[in-house]
């Protein structure tokens, strides 16, 4: 059996669950929206350097929102022993990870696509570097965050204070991709290319390395 088909089955199941309950998208979306609305009052909407601040605030909102969603999607598997159903199925453990990753990526990126225009309007930003750069940077940064977050949420799901432990595990490891994603978003808002290529390459390398590490370590994490 290949990895892709069961991974898509698992992601499809998460999507169906979400369609019925709207648990993740509603809580994550509302949280991210609250952060950007608050930021629009707290930070200047004019003046030099505001694009850098805006990009930082944007990614802070994305990070916390992603953490909220990832903790929830893994907790669903813990209820009624559903994770045991996955682990005793013929699906390779790697595809269980990929399935959860696809679902988390889908939920998080969908929320980000809704939040981005609201953020741009509220903070009076102009994606002068091109919307494609903003969307690409957001996707690549989110992939890195979600890869690390999915792995750590599997680790944290059996712990008592998983809501507190997940951010503690994810934040230090996600610093490089956060910095790179902020820089790419800043470039998208200012239109100044500068060293954006290097930041994009750093994001790409981070995504690739952590994807490989996560796929390699997830099966042993799932062993009792």
């Amino acid at each position: 059996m290949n990895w892709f088909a069961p991974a898509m089955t698992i992601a499809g199941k998460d999507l169906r669950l979400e369609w019925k309950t709207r648990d993740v998208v509603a809580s994550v979306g509302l949280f991210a929206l609250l952060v950007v609305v608050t930021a629009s009052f707290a930070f200047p909407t004019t003046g030099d350097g505001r694009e850098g601040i805006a990009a930082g605030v944007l990614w802070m909102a994305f990070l916390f929102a992603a953490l909220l969603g990832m903790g929830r999607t893994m907790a669903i598997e813990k209820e009624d022993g559903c994770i045991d159903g996955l682990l005793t199925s013929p699906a390779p453990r790697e595809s269980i990870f990929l399935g959860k990753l696809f679902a988390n990526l889908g939920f998080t990126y969908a929320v980000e696509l809704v939040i981005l225009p609201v953020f741009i309007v509220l903070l009076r930003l102009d994606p002068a570097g091109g919307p494609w750069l903003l969307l690409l940077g957001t996707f690549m940064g989110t992939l890195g965050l979600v890869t690390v977050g999915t792995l750590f949420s599997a680790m944290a799901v059996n712990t008592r204070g998983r809501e507190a432990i997940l951010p503690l595990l994810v934040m230090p490891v996600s610093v490089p991709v956060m910095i790179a994603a902020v820089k790419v978003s800043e470039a998208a808002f200012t239109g100044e290319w500068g060293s954006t290529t290097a930041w994009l390459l750093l994001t790409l390398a981070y995504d690739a390395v952590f994807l490989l590490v996560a796929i390699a370590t997830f099966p042993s994490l799932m062993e009792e």
Partner: protein
Amino acid sequence: MHELPPLGIRLRGVTKAFGRQLALANVDLDIPPGSYVAVMGANGAGKTTMLKIVSGLAAPTRGSVTIAGVEMKKAGPRLRAMVGFVSHETMLYGDLTSRENLLFHAKLLGLADPRDAVARSAERLAVTSFLDKPVRALSRGMRQRVTLARALLNEPTVILLDEPYTGLDEAAAASLSDLLDELHTPERVVMLTLHDVARALSGPQRLVAIASGRVVMDRPLHGGTDDIAESYMELLREGATR
């Protein structure tokens, strides 16, 4: 030592430790095809741990478990598909309907026609009438039947059930006993954990009793079962006073 036929289960020196706590200690067991085995013991004796290790859900700290001659640690998708596991948890998503849950697992099993497999399994377990209800809305007995329908989707050759009678009323328990009798074929291994001696004596053909992680009794169950019940109760009393 006799060679097991292809689909038998073999445990050799299986030890499972959680920190300093030994859940299973050096367990050796041969379960040939066609076996219908009841694993009994007090709470915390190691029954669930044994089933989890056989299902591949947990790895032994020492020792090995082989099914069909293949170590569970190295089990590929085909071998894992041969094992149907019913835990005391439902393994069902409460917000999905029974049909959606069964279809999901049928797809994970890689079945050629998942819808047909779901329809057949649902009919066998008499769950067709509530296939489109969310699992959360079902009674414990109904959920147990859906759980069994999930485990039997691909007609596995090894069926492991962890305390399947828990929470069932008499009628549901009787129909579960009938189903287990029906599942017991010469090619298949049915292995379940139980608390109730009377149940162990009314269907299974072999009783394995565990105390403190060790196999303390392993006897066939045919005829003259009174002494077995008495011996088992004696073992439990000894364990309780230790």
